[in-house]
């Protein structure tokens, strides 16, 4: 077998070399984000490094990027895994400030963080006119799970059409799994049951039927 071709990252121009940046501490990285003279590349790498080392102090500088079309994802890259509650606060605060794809991204991050405080605003976005935003809200509500999210998703299931209905059904499946994990079995089964209607897209309907069977078998009395 032949050896693969030699990699090419070493040919990066000086302005796109990251080694120095990826060793900086949180304070220095935040300073890069605050500096109006920093390049796009420097800011991008600062955000990626802050994803693993940034604390509460890094949140405002990262949050300021959420409305920037080019840098919004990098801001989320830094915020999404940050365990400080202020990161969730910043993402929620950005919801009314962005729209379209950037809003979808912020919603996705709230879902990934399983941010329970986001359920109310996400429920409103689920009913909004932008289908892509509503689909993202359905997925995020599913990831967050809980009774309030379940209520929102079940309500939307009866109204949603086309691709949004499929997204809401997928969100319901996620949400029901979360409920089962928390021991809320009857609520989970009710959600699964709502997915067995013939107008639900087939993949989600079959998944719900399979989940109901598995849940019922799990409580079967030994014979």
């Amino acid at each position: 077998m032949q050896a693969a071709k030699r990699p090419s990252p070493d040919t990066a121009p000086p302005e796109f070399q990251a080694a120095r940046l990826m060793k900086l501490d949180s304070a220095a990285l935040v300073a890069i984000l605050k500096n109006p003279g920093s390049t796009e590349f420097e800011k991008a790498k600062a955000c990626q490094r802050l994803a693993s080392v940034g604390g509460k102090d890094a949140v405002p500088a990262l949050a300021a990027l959420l409305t920037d079309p080019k840098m919004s994802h990098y801001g989320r890259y830094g915020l999404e895994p940050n365990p400080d509650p202020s990161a969730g606060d910043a993402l929620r605060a950005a919801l009314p400030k962005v729209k379209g794809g950037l809003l979808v991204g912020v919603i996705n991050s709230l879902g990934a963080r399983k941010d329970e405080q986001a359920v109310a605003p996400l429920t409103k976005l689920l009913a909004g006119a932008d289908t892509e935003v509503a689909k993202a809200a359905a997925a995020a509500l599913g990831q967050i799970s809980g009774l309030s999210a379940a209520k929102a998703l079940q309500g939307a299931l009866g109204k949603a059409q086309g691709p949004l209905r499929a997204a809401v059904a997928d969100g319901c499946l996620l949400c029901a799994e979360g409920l089962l994990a928390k021991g809320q079995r009857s609520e989970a089964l009710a959600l699964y049951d709502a997915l067995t209607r013939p107008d639900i897209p087939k993949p989600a309907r079959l998944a719900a039927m399979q989940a109901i069977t598995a849940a019922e078998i799990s409580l079967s009395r030994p014979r």
Partner: protein
Amino acid sequence: MQQGSVSRRGFVKTASALAAAPMIVPSHVLGQRAGAVAPSDKIVAAGIGIGNRGNHDLRALISFGQVRFVAICDVRNERREEVKSVIDQKYGNRDCAMYDDQYELLARQDIDAVLIATGDRWHTPLSIIAAQHGKDVYCEKPCSMSIEESWALADAFRRYGRIYQAGCQRRNGGNNCLATELVETGRLGKLHTVVANAGPWVNWPPLPSHNWLAAEPEPPKAVVDWERWLGPCPWRPYNSAYVRGGWRNFYDFHGGGILEWGSHTVDLCQWAAKKDDTQPVEYVPEGGNTGPYAVHCKFADGLKLEIVDEGWDGRLKLGACTIRYEGENGWVETGDTGKIECSDNLRPFLRPVTEAKLALAYHMQDWLECIKSRKQPRASAANAANSHITCHAAFIAFQLGRKLTWNPAKQEFVNDDEANRLRFRAHREPWRV
């Protein structure tokens, strides 16, 4: 190869909906001639992102008579045309449809299964989207870009009851099967160490670069859709080298040598050691980015997993992707040459096996049979997730340059916030897992 034994669509519906035992209808009951496949028994397949490696998979897939390949999706126009040409030539028509949007392809109700051979960054998101559309999936390795994606992948395929085969074809290679059999039958005695060759540092350093290549003018979207090529990864300026296959060794697109080969060799080790449902609890990195490297791992029961860069052909020159299993009574080692070396006491148990290069065909056959039976194939989503999590954990330990302790039950590192944050990579909008 069992062919045409069951009406596929009827069976899938029954099995998935009711989780019932398979209803096997022998082919002679259906009145089929030996070797013939009724149209209703055909597995209708499509491909997404078929490039160099994907071409091997595609040719293996369409060599099976029960498969009808009908469509290709790619962000590159020339790749779409290439695959269409291969398919149309095989079937003697012009029917292979071309798409640049995966949702259009996946919306087709006639497609049962999808071959995904894009760059690594797309593997998990596309596989999950395919499962949500009710498709079975064969996906190239590495299957995930993070620990989070590994969980999401396994969860999705369990949730939707779809059949997933990771492109870890060595699990169906004759040499690796025999090595695993020697472990399973106790010939080695109690297993104490398994060794997985990692991708050589000269080809794939363990720490991929965070650099960007110089910006080049973006080609028209119809030629290369750069936004879609990047997909869930962080934005960077276009450079044609990425698109021509030079994306490896960049952190945003690649997991370095540990994921490049570990997704095969660590996967084999966990299979042989019956660790398909867990990961090591300890990871100790050794070495740097410009020389041989290792991550020394240990499972909760004391079994050692050594992820070691032993060069392209391995310690004993047995070929790429070597593995070695060491027990109290002996050892066995094999690689892509198909040759098997072992301690003298085990030689009587060696026997001729199928050629290593046939692993892909057997692996594809395993997937196709499982699509019909609804059983789990050898490299299922759950198995792949577990071995990939091991690789990602080792990769994180190497990035941080310190010993890490992992809790498989909680799926988190113990007392290491920085390591735990590296379990995730935020996806660029609109993508999510």
